[in-house]
Structures are given as C-alpha cells and as structure tokens.
C-alpha cells in the first residue's frame, strides 16, 4: 500500500492491485478528522453505509478509476446541496457526521470538500449526528 508508512490493517473491501496505480493512492493517509460527513441510507448508519460501489458488485464506472470505485465519498463539511442532484436525492435519506481516526481507514483529500475513504476491516462508524435530508 504505497503512501502509507506503517503496516495497516486489512481493508474492509478487497482493493484493486496494480503496480502502476497503487490503491489507496500515494496521496492517501491514515489521519484523524474530528468530523466527516457521509450520505447514508439508515439511521443510525452502519458499516454497510460505507460500502463502495465496487463492494455492491457494480461494475466499474468508466469515468472512475478502479481505486476510486472501491472508495466511499465523504465530505469535510455538512453539505446537503448534493441532494439537489437526481441520483443522490433518490438514493440517500440522511447525512451523517462521523469521527474518523487513523484506525478507521485511509482517507485522501480531493478538490473542494470531497474526501475518498477506504475503511479498514475493523471500521465501526462513530456517529456524532445524523441529519434527515
């Protein structure tokens, strides 16, 4: 697992193995976030709410990398705006605020407030609050 300095636990999901494109990528780190926000389907959210599309058995989206497809999207701030989009509006009922520690998994900051998250097998979401959409 390139980019991660210490031996990490197993991941919750099997991640793609490619020597030219490590997963999680170089920019991924085990780090703490007092809170990250995740669109979820249940209250309280369970580990199942943090499954990637790959784990759901969906074939990779051509506009996503294999590694991205095996991650789940989280956000640095509470942002319910994505509910304005047709698919999230239909798919998600809540947005949950969770605390993330280095033992939860690997995160990688994207542009804006988006964060990719690859949870470890031991991950149990520590939920701070759940907001109905």
């Amino acid at each position, binding site marked *: 697992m390139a980019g991660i300095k210490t031996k990490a636990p197993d991941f919750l999901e099997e991640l793609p193995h490619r020597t030219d494109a490590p997963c999680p990528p170089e920019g991924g780190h085990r780090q703490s976030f007092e809170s990250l926000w995740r*669109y979820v389907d249940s209250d309280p959210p369970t580990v199942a709410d943090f499954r*990637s*599309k790959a784990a759901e058995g969906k*074939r990779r*989206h*051509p*506009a*996503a990398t294999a590694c*991205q*497809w095996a991650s*789940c*999207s989280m956000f640095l701030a509470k*942002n319910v*705006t*994505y*509910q*304005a*989009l*047709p*698919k*999230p*509006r*239909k798919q998600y009922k809540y947005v949950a605020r969770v605390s993330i520690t280095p033992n939860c998994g690997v995160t990688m900051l*994207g*542009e*804006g*407030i*988006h964060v990719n998250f690859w949870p470890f097998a031991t991950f149990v979401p520590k939920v701070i609050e759940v907001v109905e959409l």
Partner: protein
Amino acid sequence: MTDQAKTLPRWKEPEAKFVGTLVYLDEPQVVFLDHGADAKIIGVAIDRDGMDYGFLGAEISWHQWQRYKRQFVDLRYLFLLPRWKRWYLFDLAAMNESTCMVPVIRAKEDVYKNEDYLPSHRFFAREHTAQIEETVASELKTETYYIDGAWDPADLSLFFGRINDLYSFFLGLKKFVSAQTTPDQKRGLVEAFTDNTLHSGFNYVNLFGDLKGLVGYDERLAMGAIKKSSPGFVEIAGQVETLGEVTEAFVNYVANYDELKEKYNELHSYLSRGKLLKKEPARFDQKGVVAKFIRQKGEAFSAQLDVDYGTLDKLTHGDSLKTAKILLSFHRRLERYQLFFTEGRVSLDDPKRVASSPSIVAIPDA
C-alpha cells in the same frame, strides 16, 4: 428566436466527447462533454431502465458554461434553458475508454421535463468536487447568415459593421477579464471604454472603433464567402465563443424586446432630463444620489441585457454614468443589428433554397 437558435450549424454527430467529472459522490454525478463548436453537454446522473450509468444532458453554449462557473446561474437553470434547446440521454457505460466518445440520443420532452431527472435549484458550481481540463474555445468558427431581398455592397458593409460592433464589444469585455491580457492591453481597453465620453459625449461610435483597434488580427471578425443573390448567404468568421455571445445577445434582445426598450427609455430619459448625456465626466459627482440612482437603473438594464455589470463597472472605474452610456449604446447596436432581421433580409435559418444561384464571390478578410 428559439427557432433561429435551433438551426444554427452545430456538431450534429450522435456522440460527444467525455471531458471530465464535475461532481463525484460514490460515482460520477455531474459530468461535462464536448459536443463540437460552442456546444457543450452538462449531464446529471439518473436512474433509468436500460441504462447502467445513465445521464440526462443539456446542450449549452460556452458562454453559458462560463456563467455557470462564475455562479451567475445554477445547474437547474442550464437544464431549463440550455442555449441550444437540446437535451440528450447517454449511458457512460457505453463510453469508448480509449477515445472517450459517448453515444448520445436526443431526449424527448417527457424526459427532459421529468422532475425526477432534473437537478433542484440552488446547486452552484462551487459544489463541484473536481475541476476539468477545459479546451479554451479560441478556435475560429464560421457563422452563416442567410440573406434575401436587395443587397448592395454598402448594405453588406453595414451589416458586417453591425455584427462587428457587437463582436468587438464582447471580445473587449472578455479580454479585459482574461488573465492572458497584458496590463498594457487592459489599459487600452479601459481607455477605449472610458475616454470616449471626454470627446464624444453621448456618441459612443468611437468606443466601438477603438475596441476594434485593440483586437488582435487573429481574433478579428472576417467576412468569408458571400453568395449575393436572393436568397443568398454571408459567411462571417470569428472566435467561437464571442460569435456565440453575439447570437445569444441577439436572441435575448428579441425575447425581451419590450422590457429592454422600457428600461432603455427610462434610463435615457433620466439622463436626458438631467442633461447628463453630454455632461463633462469630471464634473459628475460619482458618489452622489444621482450616481446611485443611475447605477441602480444600469444594473437592472445590464441584467436584462445579459451583460456583466461588474466587468463594465471595473472598466469605467465605478463610474455609473459612463457605464449607463455604454449600456445604452450597446442596446442601440443590438437594435440596429436586429433591424436586418426584422426587415426579413437576414435570417439564421437555412431556408434550404440557397443552392440555385452560381454568383459566388469570395471576399478577402475585412
């Protein structure tokens, strides 16, 4: 006007090039496709039977895309009023990953008006989770104007001049806000937009003349082929984006003719009554009540004209009187340009009757 917009020559191929993802939430939710000269498709992910990664796309102009990026409009607006009045369905699962080409099919009204497929209001570009590498639309494009009735060389010259005024105006504004424009060039633009009040009062002919002088040779509008018969056509080449802005301004002008005329008359009358049309700029109190009132009216007029007031405000150093005069002048240019269409002598529609006359005359660049 929408009919005219519909018949503008566009890239008609039933496929578009995937450019990038704008919003990613577990999967691509908003994507951007290139569909040819001045035609971009912005798509939102939808659930639709028979499609793995289905999207509804709206075909917008480059100018609309820029306005969306600058948050003048939200995403829903692009789907309700896409410039080219076309909506598409596409499945990114069918994308050719080596060429990035995606088959697109025209969506019918029951699809593009289906609320389940439309984004809600108040989703702005600031929510994007990714930036895309854009192709700068600086390439040249040829626009065909179909002509009819009697045309002599002076008429052609006048018509070209009318388009050129509007083209130079938009190109001037674009260059002023562009990071690629040098400080000297920007100074020239500021002078063109502001100095004319010193010597020409309300007559802004010089403004448009000066603007043309500031446009690079590679950016200038040029007249291409002409078929001077009845009916015939005139081809005019210029920057894709700027020519698109001219067309959009014209469509907007026709669609909002009454409101624009009312706002024009109101502003013009106010300046006339206050003898401000020819007032020496240095003697105008830019912070007074009158200036504030003019600004208020100018902003409303500018919004209706779909011209960015903020840019003009910067160009005139916050002088609301100068800005108002520029807007009035711009409106008159649109009015004069539109006259050719009202007279029935020019159309953006292809009447499909053009092929009969052999009298094709090539005219060198203007």
